[in-house]
């Protein structure tokens, strides 16, 4: 350990790693970010861009609270990225709609709201269902006149919104550069081992020494975590997205399956498939997404699709984030989730300072992977 030792090495330069690294360097740490190359599975380049609260945390009240907290402080992150990094990420939080085509859709949403209400943490943000409520078809169409006649009702949450995820990534990286973070693309991490009181990170292009290490490599954490005493049982979950040409404004709210960007394109999601580490496109899935979109917004039948792609979510067994410090390797942390956009604000502004302080607080205890051991036992 010497002068070339970083305070913290962040493994992964996607939205999770960048948000954490940005928060760390703003807290005064000397940070190196080790990123892979274009052959990596980059969820941060393929995601949808929702800042989404509705339904998150069904089964874990702490996640409902954490998500809500992130949506609450997202305007601070957006304002800081605009003023300090010169990047307008286009945050809009008009509220979010989940539209129902069948009674079964509505029944499932009603049950979810009841379950979340019963698991609430009184007095904390995220208490209950985070203000999600069921609205009638007429109420939904009053909010969003372009919704079609097949929509029989909807769930509405006033805290939902969306953002341009590519500008978000660019804004964070602009900050890393401005604040002197040593960002190293093309540095695939081979292994991490102890070195004196800290750690030696062996990469494809040489070693890096750091006092602390943050695993934020998405699916890349899978081989690294077990060698560092961390149980991170994540797997790839393939989602597909379609995007239309730029259209005149027709969708004003955020939807779990739709959003119209500031530039006018309508993004259409969201599928889920277990196909391993495979980002190839299943055209039947794209067609199914398009067909459903036409039922919800009939006007989209006249829109032209210009692109469709897939990306891999980083999914834990229960779908909730995993945050922990290794017990066998103190100073090694893991930060992983499938909501790198929604959680960017808490990762940058609240989680990073805790890592810098060297201890995850009690409010993050529920996110420990210990919960998987208890299930398995």
């Amino acid at each position: 350990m010497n002068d070339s030792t970083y305070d913290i090495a962040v493994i992964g330069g996607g939205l999770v790693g960048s948000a954490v690294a940005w928060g760390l360097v703003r807290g005064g740490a000397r940070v190196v970010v080790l990123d892979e190359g274009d052959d990596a599975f980059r969820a941060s380049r393929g995601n949808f861009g929702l800042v989404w609260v509705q339904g998150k945390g069904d089964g874990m009240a702490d996640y409902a609270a954490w998500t809500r907290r992130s949506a609450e402080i997202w305007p601070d992150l957006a304002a800081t990225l605009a003023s300090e990094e010169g990047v307008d990420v286009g945050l809009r939080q008009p509220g979010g709609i989940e539209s129902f085509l069948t009674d079964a859709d509505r029944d499932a949403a009603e049950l979810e709201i009841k379950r979340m209400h019963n698991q609430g943490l009184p007095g904390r943000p995220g208490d209950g269902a985070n203000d999600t409520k069921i609205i009638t078809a007429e109420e939904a169409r009053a909010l969003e006149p372009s919704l079609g006649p097949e929509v029989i009702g909807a769930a509405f949450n006033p805290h939902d919104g969306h953002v341009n995820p590519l500008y978000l990534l660019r804004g964070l990286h602009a900050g890393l550069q401005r604040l002197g973070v040593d960002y190293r693309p093309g540095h695939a991490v081979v292994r991490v081992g102890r070195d004196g009181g800290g750690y030696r990170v062996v990469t494809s292009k040489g070693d890096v020494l750091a006092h602390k290490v943050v695993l934020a490599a998405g699916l890349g954490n899978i081989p690294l975590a077990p060698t560092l005493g961390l149980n991170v049982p994540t797997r790839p979950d393939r989602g597909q997205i379609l995007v239309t040409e730029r259209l005149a404004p027709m969708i004003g709210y955020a939807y779990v399956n739709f959003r119209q960007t500031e530039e006018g394109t309508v993004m259409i999601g969201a599928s889920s498939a277990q196909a391993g580490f495979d980002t190839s496109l299943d055209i039947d899935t794209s067609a199914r997404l398009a067909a459903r979109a036409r039922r919800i917004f009939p006007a989209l039948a006249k829109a032209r699709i210009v692109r469709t792609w897939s990306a891999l979510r980083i999914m834990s067994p229960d779908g909730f984030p995993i945050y922990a410090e290794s017990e066998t390797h103190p100073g090694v942390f893991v930060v992983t989730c499938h909501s790198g956009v929604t959680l960017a604000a808490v990762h940058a502004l609240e989680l990073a300072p805790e890592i810098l302080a060297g201890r995850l607080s009690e409010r993050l205890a529920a996110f420990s992977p210990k919960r998987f051991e208890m299930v398995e036992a």
Partner: protein
Amino acid sequence: MKFSRLESANASPAVCFTCNGQVIEARVGDSVATALLMAGIGSTRDTALSGEGRAAYCLMGVCFECLVEIDGIPNQQACLVPVSEGMSVRRQEGAPQVWNG
């Protein structure tokens, strides 16, 4: 800007098409983009985002600035489509309005 045709290109037979109803004479082998430039049509679309005028730029299929509607099909790259007799070309004006609320 005024464009003039190379002497060697004048040998091609004439062909007529329309742009927003205006009859334009071109030569067989012209692309729609060059034929429009030759006819002095300054911009062939207004952008979906700002509404600013755009015209053919790279003329080799890369920049997508020359998008026009050809025979009812929008977003055609005018620089890659050869003119043909009776073809109907239309300017694209801003973002398409698919929903009329």
